[in-house]
């Protein structure tokens, strides 16, 4: 079980990375509008076809 001395710090590192990524997403406005991006996928006429 000595492996936990490596794995747990590693998992913590991963946690820090995840939190950093999330903070970045919040800062860059990814959570500002949660409704309209869901609709863009319904838009089958994409710009380059027009």
């Amino acid at each position, binding site marked *: *079980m000595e492996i*936990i*001395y490596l794995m*747990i710090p590693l*998992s*913590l590192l991963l*946690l820090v990375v*995840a*939190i950093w990524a*999330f*903070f970045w997403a*919040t*800062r860059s*406005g990814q*959570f*500002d*509008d949660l*409704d*309209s991006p*869901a*609709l*863009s996928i*319904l*838009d089958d*006429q994409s*710009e380059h076809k*027009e």
Partner: protein
Amino acid sequence: MAILTRPAERYSPSIGETGSHADESKLSNRSICFHCLEPMPKYGNLTANIGGHVHPMCCIGCKSAAQYIDQQGLTKFYDHRDRLNHRDFFSSVAKSVSVSAAEAGSAIEDQWLFLDRKDTSSAYVSYGDPQYRCISVLVEGLYCSSCSWLIQRALNTVSSNIECHIDVDSKCVHIKVSDPRVVFSNVMITIAQLGYKPTALKIGSHSDTFALAKTQRNEALKRILVAGLGMMQVMTYATAGYFAGNESDPNIDSQQARFLLLVSMLVATVIVFYSGKPFFQNAWSDLKNRHLGMDVPISLAIAGAYFPSVYHVLFRIDSHVYFDSAVMFVFFLSVGRYVEMRARHRLSGSSVGIAGLLPEKVRVRRTKASKSPMVDIAPNGVKLGDQCELKASEVAPFDAKIVEGGGQFDESLFCGESLPVERAAGDSVLAGSALLSGAVTVEAIQTWGNSSIAKVQKCIQSAERVNADEQQRNSLLSRYFILFTLILTTVTAGAWLTIDPDRVFEVCLAMLIATCPCAFALAAPVGRSAAIHALRRCGVLLTNNTALASMQRVSHWCFDKTGTLTEGRPSVYDVFPQGTLSRERCLELVACIEREADHVLSTAFNTIETSLVAHNIKEVVGSGISAEIGQETYRVGKRDWVLRNQVNRHTIPDPKSDRTELILSNNSNVLAVIELTDEIRPSAPDFVRNLRSTCTTVKTTILSGDRKEVVSKIADRLQIADHFANLSPSEKLAKIDLYQEQGEVVAMVGDGVNDAPVLAGADVSIAMASGSHLAMNNADVILLNGNLRNLLHLLKVATRTAWITRQNLVWALLYNLTALPLAACGLLTPWIAALGMSLSSLLVVLNALRIHQLSHSELETN
């Protein structure tokens, strides 16, 4: 293309017939405007070719918005709107605004040029990086995601380099441009052409509250994530820790168990101090203010779980650690707070005050000062005798007397008068009245403190205070509950000291966590949040927390007339041809002439399309217009003026008191009498009838500032027995006060500035989105599409919300009442208490979601 035609087929079944021109006028009587989905007016022949199909349009505003959308290749928008089920409200919003945009006419292009000039733009445009320019725009009429989709796409057609963030909650569009060729006036025009009403926001001005709300939301999200991810880690370590004490399990030795403890302490420390910070801060400020808020026992429980555990780990005391309970507690509480905060932020109150109705600066001539007679002042700096000149479409900045000139004023904001009023030299005008045509010089006759606007403002403030008192009473109740749990915990602690001193701490902790009134506190905000969401879908915006609760107790509905029960703008009521010309032909002639005029009555003819061209147009202010069409000269205007200019004196029917008439004549004959009226909203009779049938005891009253005859006519048609005319804003308020003294719960529906005080004073106030800002600011509910039937939905949702919230409260109470004795007897460990608390909260949330779903299916069937 097949998809594109779908909405049209659904809303106007007879659309196939629109192909030939002859059918159009017949068809328009029974179909719906394709753009705004409101019924077509009685006399209207507008159509637009959208996506290859001809669709009926109710007015020029709708038509130009729809055509613009078509030109930009954005017809998908009509599709989205259908799919989203926002169809009932969204575009009617765009309509009310687009009508005014069409009225503004050519002014629309010049209006935003100040954003491109170096000297005037600095207050609005910020430069992030040297190559970036940013601007924030408040977009009125932006209410849903298909609106934001439309704006985003339209702006991309201006330039592909425009980056925009659209915040639907705050109705703000934040635009960032790197291309130096993009001019902001162009951006504004694009938004306006879609049918919205954009306003550039000054840097750091009233966007502050929105920005603050956004930062708060983002901060809360970060806290939740840190708590959530951290909680999972700590739980994992704790589970491992449960086996560590077990001698039979050789896999984890005490060295490793201690490592796990240290790691969980590390993670828990981050969570408690980062995610839990707001609770400690609030508790601290509560204590400083000698006020017992809910955060006090919460902080006690978090600190009580965390600090002793740290002590135990550091000093290697073999005892229980409660990091898992602490972080779970923080996480679930943060989620609860977030839900509550969202509900609060979604209340779409705007921050535009009464002064926003007036121009920011006016140039006046100080008649009583010898030096520098021309000064720029704000309206509240006005002195007696100040004079200023008003041109058409400007707003009187203070209560004044006309010293020179004359013209038509729109006084609907203050006195509810539905039709333009003639004012000449010597007459007085109220601040906020808009000059529609003509030019006048006015002189101030009141100082700011005595002006009508300041009086309305005072009325509003005094009415608001009453509501604030009520909220205070509610918070008192929860304070007693908290005090009760704290005392009970102390008593239990005392009891356990004598029974088993070792377990005192554990028991107290379990009690604090179990009694934490979480599900209790969540029940109301979660229900409200679900209701807000459900209502938003049918075009009803809530701006106040207490409105839903008071809604179902309403025993007396009061209505304003102009703009509430009626459309608030003139429309063609009937046409009486006097000669050989057909009605359609007469209307076409009038529409052609009136198109060039710019007074309120001319908007009634926005619904008629004509290919005729008028020449030699002469407008006689206050009388009428003459113009040449083809070989003939026509006159449209008041009876006296037309008859005076006329050779052949006809006998024409006497005017009716409650309608405005226009007479059309050529050089020799009267051709038609056209009656204009401020038509009752189509949804009004239906609503009043339904209201009576659903709750038979409810009373209805009309409170109007308009003339007696007009009000009684409308009251007759709606079968509302009680009606009062000629009321001033303060008299309206007095009426409502009287009803409230008689123990009635009053709902007020209104739209104008004159309704603002009464809206602030009513138990539930509902404003029309097409009305004034001031009315909306003081309303608990904003009705987006002017469809009064949606108020019935509001009633239904309010009743259901109250019922489900009561279920939730009962459940939370039952849970707390069972958990408390169990915890006090030492049967609950802290982590089980935390789990139970979370589960009960979850149940409350899931139950509240039913409000949303039920109302959804019901709206579908309607």
